[in-house]
């Protein structure tokens, strides 16, 4: 399921239960996916239980999702900082939490999915690039902000531009981002000498 500002639409589902879950949220206007889009991940181990420690966030949705066969639901936002793209849901037909490894995989998948969607909807970027995990580096996001001003585009397009540029020139995104940040830093020129020594 993908949610863009104001527009909601289901992009793809793996089976009928997943489709039903997304349809429900779309129809009712409530559910974990919608909350995940606006805030952060929503992890529900057991749809039958009280779930969220007394929170009863979506009374209509929860009952209907249970009836369609879901027992646990995990919703992850697709976002890069301020850039919100959508969310994706995982469901289970048995109750139970995601373990640490599964959670890590789901979060990593959400990160890469967000980047892929941004890339594919960005005009003028045709080269696919492999996953590189660079989204965990602060300078990549600082550089996106800087480039958005310098190139007169949105932060999300600047983020894509940076990665496309790095990939096309065969350089790590992190290195290119570092260069962008230092080139605009008013102290960058005098600092660059010592930076080289330490890197």
């Amino acid at each position, binding site marked *: 399921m993908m949610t863009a500002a104001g527009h909601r639409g289901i992009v793809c589902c793996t089976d009928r239960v997943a489709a039903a879950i997304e349809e429900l949220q779309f129809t009712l206007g409530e559910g974990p996916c919608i909350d995940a889009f606006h*805030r*952060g*991940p*929503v*992890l*529900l*181990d057991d749809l039958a239980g009280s779930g*969220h*420690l007394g929170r009863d966030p979506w009374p209509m949705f929860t009952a209907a999702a249970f009836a369609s066969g879901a027992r646990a639901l995990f919703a992850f*936002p697709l*976002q*890069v*900082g*301020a*850039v919100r793209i959508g969310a994706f849901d995982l469901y289970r037909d048995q109750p139970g*939490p995601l373990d*640490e490894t599964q*959670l*890590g995989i789901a*979060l*990593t998948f959400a*990160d890469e999915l967000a980047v892929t969607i941004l890339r594919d909807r960005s005009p003028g970027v045709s080269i696919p690039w492999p996953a590189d*995990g660079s*989204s*965990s*580096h*602060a*300078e990549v*996001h*600082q*550089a*996106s*902000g*800087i*480039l*958005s*001003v*310098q190139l007169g585009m*949105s*932060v999300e397009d600047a983020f894509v531009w940076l990665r496309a540029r790095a990939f096309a020139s065969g350089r790590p995104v992190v290195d290119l981002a*570092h260069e962008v*940040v*230092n080139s*605009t*830093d*008013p*102290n*960058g020129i005098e*600092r660059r000498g*010592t*930076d080289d*020594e*330490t890197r």
Partner: protein
Amino acid sequence: MTRPAEPPIRHRPGSGSRERQLADVFVTLADTLVADFDVLEVLDVLVRACVDTLGSTAAGLLLGDQRGQLRVMAASAESSRLLEVFQIQNDEGPCLDCFRTRQPVSVPDLSIAVGQWPRFVPVAVASGFRSVHALPMRLRDTTIGALNLFHGDEVALTVEELRVAQALADTATIGILQQRALQSSNLMAEQLQTALNSRVAIEQAKGVLAATGGLDMEQAFQALRRHARDHNLRLSDLAREIATGTTDVAAILGPRA
């Protein structure tokens, strides 16, 4: 190397005892920990409190992102260079060791630790640091991150100072996880991820402000924080508005002093 019996003077004469400073810190935190508070504001207060009460040259806070990385969440100064000293510890360094072992790590003399951390030590030393301490941010069986304290001279924090630092780290942990999360690993993951994403929005906003105003990253963060405080806005919300272009950046940069 340990510090001589007579510690270097770290506090301004007449600035009051550490107890009073700590009391001030906790009053400030109580003010910050209101309903719907911004986690990143609390962490910002905390790292600055470490510098003030423990005489640290710099303080930073790293969190595990549940994807296998340590990420910088707050720093007493926001220069790219300092953030790098913290961030490199995702690969090696006292913060990573502290995070993995769940135990405090004290390195009073960095120069003899270069064999232990061949990449981290040169970066830290080049930034003017001579000693480092790392304290775990723990909640029961889980470690969510580490608090990192740097000093510009060779310093071994006393047991009492380490206790103060740990109290600050524990407060940060509670701030991130919020009280209701104490009982659920799901809620912990939800809070952590939300805080991590807010931090990314702050980096994006710093970039926008830096490029628009010709500022470095520290100045950009100061402008962001000042505007949030002056207008009673949450730091994270303001950062999002700046990054998505839904607020007037010129008003935030204001007339240059």
